[in-house]
């Protein structure tokens, strides 16, 4: 799970019409969360604003990521009470662990599915990655899907597996030929 602390708080410049400009830039970069969800990863935004304001902001800006209101010392405990920042956590049974934190210009890389997965404890969970033994990994391309089609297609469509294998083989062949010439 990835938690981005966005400053949409009473008293912050832009309130209550807008979230902070930097945080809004981050929000505008966020890819469809269905791709993260397909890798068992959840992205949420958190702010001090009440839910009614968050719902209004999301509707106005067309943002669809889950966005929660902070109620306690979560922000102070995870380094995001004064500045924006992105924390990554992992759940193992009943236990939760903090695995990563990035802020400052690190946050400007955030938004794409790949960069988000790259900061999670398990990564993209693709076979080519150098990960510790036993980490979940499946072939690249195969798990990719249209963002509205993950639920309907729980395991990769065999036809797509065939097409993506052929595409990858053709690409590798061309690459090898280019290197040889």
């Amino acid at each position: 799970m990835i938690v981005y602390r966005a400053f949409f708080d009473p008293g912050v410049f832009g309130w209550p019409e807008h979230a902070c400009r930097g945080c809004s830039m981050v929000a505008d970069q966020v890819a469809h969360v269905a791709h993260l969800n397909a890798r068992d990863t959840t992205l949420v935004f958190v702010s001090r604003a009440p839910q009614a304001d968050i719902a209004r902001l999301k509707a106005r800006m067309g943002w669809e990521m889950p966005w929660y209101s902070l109620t306690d010392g979560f922000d102070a405990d995870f380094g995001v009470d004064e500045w924006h920042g992105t924390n990554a956590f992992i759940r193992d049974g009943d236990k939760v662990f903090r695995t990563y934190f990035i802020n400052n210009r690190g946050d400007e890389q955030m938004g794409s599915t790949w960069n988000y997965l790259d900061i999670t404890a398990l990564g993209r969970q693709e076979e080519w990655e150098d990960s510790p033994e036993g980490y979940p990994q499946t072939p690249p391309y195969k798990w990719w899907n249209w963002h509205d089609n993950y639920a309907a297609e729980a395991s990769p469509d065999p036809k797509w597996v065939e097409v993506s294998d052929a595409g990858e083989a053709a690409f590798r062949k061309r690459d090898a030929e280019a290197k040889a010439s």
Partner: protein
Amino acid sequence: MATSKERDKEHPKGHLAMKTPPIVSQQEWEAARQQLLVKEKALTRSRDALAAERRRMPWLAVEKKYEFVGPEGKRACSICSTAAVS
């Protein structure tokens, strides 16, 4: 903001005010792109290696319970997750 007409007036030759790189042939442009691509590939590999190192970062147990308010009201959870909140 200055219109393009105003800019043309300022720079009668129609050139940009800034000092721009040379204009080259297709072949030279391709060679320059290939040269840069070597460094870009190195950066990609290095970013993959850094991500691999990141996955080996130690974990820190989260012991406290935190409460978040979502669209459906208050949720108590060790960390806010749609899968695990009750």
